[in-house]
């Protein structure tokens, strides 16, 4: 019995520890927010995110004000380029990025691989090994980058992925915190149910 309690509480504490770790990459998310709003947002929308939401990942009011320009705090992050212009230029509408980290097999990892997957092709154009035929240009210029610049770009890609992981699941931290509490509560309750069951069934012997 004690052993069960021990294992269940260990499990809960492990989950707790994992949760505390979750927000450790907040600086990465913030850097990613800047890249995504200043670069990606040119063509891609982030329609499920509003400017004021960026305050919750620790961007200051001044930073958000600079990013939003004339737009309201409650406005969603629409693409700066009109969809028709994008269609004329790329022949395809750039997809919304809010859910991208959950909409591809591999999640954030896929985003990193895609952004760093550009390489010089045979015909002088860049190709992408993750998404051959992609219409998106090599926005960070990794295909022509020297090793030092390459490292910098890889970090940028990771930051963007971290930010998009947040945009896809902004409640993740709150959810895990609540989950740890719920699991501890249910674990204690289950132990009590077990003791109750034991007590009731003892009547039969």
């Amino acid at each position, binding site marked *: 019995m004690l052993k069960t309690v021990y294992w*269940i509480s260990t499990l809960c504490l492990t*989950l707790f520890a994992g949760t505390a770790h979750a927000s450790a990459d907040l600086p990465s998310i913030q850097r990613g927010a800047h890249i995504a709003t200043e670069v990606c947002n040119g063509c891609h929308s982030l329609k*499920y995110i509003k400017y004021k939401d960026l305050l919750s990942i620790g961007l200051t009011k001044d930073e958000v004000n600079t990013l939003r320009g004339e737009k309201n705090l409650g406005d969603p992050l629409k693409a700066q380029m009109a969809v028709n212009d994008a269609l004329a230029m790329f022949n395809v509408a750039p*997809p919304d990025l*809010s*859910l991208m980290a*959950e*909409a*591809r*097999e591999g*999640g954030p990892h896929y985003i990193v691989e895609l952004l760093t997957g550009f390489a010089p092709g045979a015909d002088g154009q860049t190709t992408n090994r993750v998404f051959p035929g992609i219409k998106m240009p090599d926005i960070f210029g990794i295909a022509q980058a020297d090793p030092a610049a390459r490292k910098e770009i890889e970090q940028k890609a990771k930051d963007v992925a971290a930010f998009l992981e947040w945009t*896809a699941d*902004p*409640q993740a931290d709150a*959810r*895990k915190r*609540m*989950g*740890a509490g*719920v*699991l501890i509560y*249910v*674990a204690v*309750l*289950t132990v009590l*149910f*077990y003791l*109750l*069951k034991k007590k*009731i*069934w003892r009547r*039969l012997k």
Partner: protein
Amino acid sequence: MSKKIVAWIDQRFPLSAFVKHELTDYPTPRNLSYWWGFGFLAGFVLVIQLVTGVFLAMHYKADSNLAFDSIQHIMREVNYGWLIRYLHSTGASAFFIVIYTHMARTLYYGSYRRPRELLWWTGQLLLLLMMATAFMGYLLPWGQMSYWGATVITNLFSATPGFGEDIVVWLRGGFAVDDPTLTRFFSMHYLFPFIISGAVIIHLVALHTVRSSNPSGLNLADKDNIPFHPYYTTKDLFGLGIFLLGYFAIVFFKPDLFIDPANNVPANPMQTPADIVPEWYFLPFYAILRSVPDLAGGVVAMLVSVLIFAAMPYLDRSRITGGARYRPIYRTLFYVFVIDIFVLGYVGAHPPANLMKLTGQIATSIYFLTFLLLPFVSRWEESRLLQSGKLPADVVGMARKEIEESHA
């Protein structure tokens, strides 16, 4: 005071008598293992689904232009909307895990045997209703997999001889899955749970008529029965605690476990996903469908694969009780069948390339062979076991009595 109120009610409605008959005096075998707790869990999950579903419906928009966005509205703007949605989406999978375990217990211990045929069949009806509900619910998020899954499955009805195409149009409310499909699926997805609730009551009435089977397979005399309350209420509560630990672990820490990434992309009729995969709980049946080269044949095979469980009381011709407990060959068949279902599930999740296709066809053959062989194997094993002298005396006695009755 409370006694007075109960007395007042009892004069007008048999409240105390009901509680006494169905709960505090309801006789239950004392040897039921935790495998007998899954019916209660299924009822519990049904309540979770009903309650969370009602709250989701307050914020969801059944409109092909708004549905996808309304899910994100629930996830981001509704207070604890993410919790309600994840409880519901995880609840669907939890429901099938619980029900499949419940069915596996019935098959293992032969609980479908006389006199529990109607209990088994009402359960089968519940399974069909549940599958229909889950299938229609999966369209509502209006993601890529929702859309294309519904397209593939409704298209199966085109195999109906004579007016197949008409049925498909009638089901979809148009020539393709579109807004009319979404609104009718939403309506039916809201209606079916109430039909399920009614069928659950029928299932319980049947249960309380024939009473629970038990792991020994014997008809336990009255002295071996204990009242359901407080013995099984407390045992079920402990089982519920264990279940909730697993359920909440997924809801709070891995809620996307059962959500296909492609369903986070809005439905696009112009773009077919690389791989259309149904929800995990349909995979074995989907594998059977694809293992038959011909569409009509595949649909028939898939239907039969679900409905054939109803024939179990007749396919299993052994008069030895206790299901797999005393019958090593039946036990082997059971485990082969369970492994086969997992193989089919794996095949169903992958594109039907060469080796995968062959594996699917072999697994499909094994699936049906287990049922086809059962009438012969069960009789043969019965006579072998009765002659062996290794069975407990009361098991032999019950079997011989049943055999005599069948001759009379």
